[in-house]
C-alpha cells in the first residue's frame, strides 16, 4: 500500500507540440527542450569564457582558472590516448565530452537527461562510426576493406559484425546507464514521496554525477581508442 504506484510514476518522454512538414507529422518532445537548455548553458559558458580570455592575465584568477583547468584536462586526456595524432581530434573529443557531461548531469537540476533518449545517443555513436571509417579509408585506403579478411578469409562476417557493432554498443552503453539512473530516481521520488527527503541526494551523487562522469569518460576514451587503432602506427 505504501509502495503502490498511484499511476504517477513518470519517466517517459512526452510529446509537447505537433507540427506537419512535407506531409509528415513531427513532434517537439521533452528531449528537444532538454537539449535546448543544455545548449544554452554550454553556449553561455563559451561566450563568457571567450570574453574573459580576450583580456586574459598571465596569472589566472577565478573564472579564467576554471576555463584553463577544463581545457588542460581535455588536452591531457586526448594526448595521453592518441599521442601525436591528437591535434586533429581534440576539437571533436572536447566538444562531445562537454556535451555528454552536461547532459548526464542535468538530471541533478530537474531536467530529464537528453542522453536518456536513444535518439540522442545513437547519432553520437554514428558520428563516431563515421569518423572511424573515414580515417580508416583515408589512411589505409584499400586495406580498409581487405583488412576485414585478415587473418583468415572465413572470419569476414565476424570482423564485419565487429565493425558494425561499435556505434551500437557505444550508444547503448551510454543510453542504458543514463536511462536506468533516470528510472531509479523517478521511482524513488514517486513511490517514497513522503519519505524521500535529503537522502536521495546520495543516490543522485551516484547515479547522476558519478555514473554520468564515468560514462562520459568511457565514451570519449573508446572513441579515441577506436580511431587510434585505424591510424598508422608510430615508427618508434
Amino acid at each position: 500500500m505504501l509502495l503502490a504506484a498511484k499511476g504517477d510514476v513518470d519517466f517517459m518522454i512526452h510529446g509537447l507540440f505537433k507540427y506537419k512538414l512535407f506531409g509528415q507529422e513531427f513532434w517537439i518532445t521533452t528531449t528537444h527542450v532538454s537539449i535546448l537548455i543544455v545548449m544554452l548553458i554550454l553556449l553561455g559558458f563559451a561566450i563568457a569564457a571567450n570574453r574573459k580570455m580576450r583580456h586574459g592575465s598571465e596569472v589566472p584568477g577565478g573564472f579564467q582558472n576554471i576555463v584553463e583547468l577544463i581545457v588542460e584536462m581535455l588536452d591531457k586526456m586526448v594526448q595521453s590516448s592518441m599521442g601525436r595524432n591528437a591535434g586533429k581530434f581534440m576539437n571533436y573529443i572536447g566538444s562531445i565530452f562537454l556535451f555528454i557531461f552536461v547532459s548526464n548531469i542535468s538530471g541533478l537540476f530537474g531536467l530529464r537527461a537528453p542522453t536518456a533518449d536513444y535518439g540522442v545517443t545513437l547519432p553520437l555513436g554514428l558520428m563516431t562510426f563515421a569518423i572511424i571509417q573515414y580515417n580508416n579509408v583515408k589512411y589505409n585506403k584499400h586495406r580498409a576493406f581487405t583488412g576485414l579478411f585478415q587473418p583468415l578469409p572465413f572470419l569476414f562476417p565476424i570482423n564485419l559484425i565487429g565493425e558494425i557493432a561499435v556505434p551500437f554498443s557505444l550508444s547503448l552503453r551510454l543510453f542504458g546507464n543514463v536511462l536506468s539512473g533516470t528510472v531509479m530516481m523517478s521511482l524513488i521520488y514517486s513511490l517514497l514521496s513522503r519519505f524521500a527527503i535529503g537522502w536521495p541526494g546520495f543516490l543522485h551523487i551516484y547515479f547522476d554525477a558519478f555514473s554520468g562522469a564515468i560514462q562520459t569518460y568511457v565514451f570519449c576514451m573508446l572513441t579515441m581508442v577506436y580511431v587510434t587503432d585505424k591510424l598508422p602506427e608510430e615508427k618508434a
Partner: protein
Amino acid sequence: MEGITNEGLILACSAIGAGLAMIAGIGPGIGQGIAAGYGASAVGRNPGAKSDIMSTMLLGQAVAETTGLYGLAIAFILLFANPLLGKL
C-alpha cells in the same frame, strides 16, 4: 469460461520475457567484482600507482557493464515500447 485474449497473452509473455532478460545482469556482476578484486590487490602491491590503476579499472568495468545493459534495454523495450502488440 472465457480464455485469455490474444493481447493478454502477448502482454503476459512480454512481462515474463522482461524478467528473463534481466538474468543478463549476473555476468557483469560477477566479472566486475572479480576485476575489482584484482584492482585492489594491484593497489596493494604498488600503492604509488593507485590513480592509474583506478582509472584503468573503472574504464574496464564500464566497458564490461555493456552486456548487462543490453538485457536492461530489452526489458525496457518489452515493458514500455512493446513492438509485438501491433503484429496481432
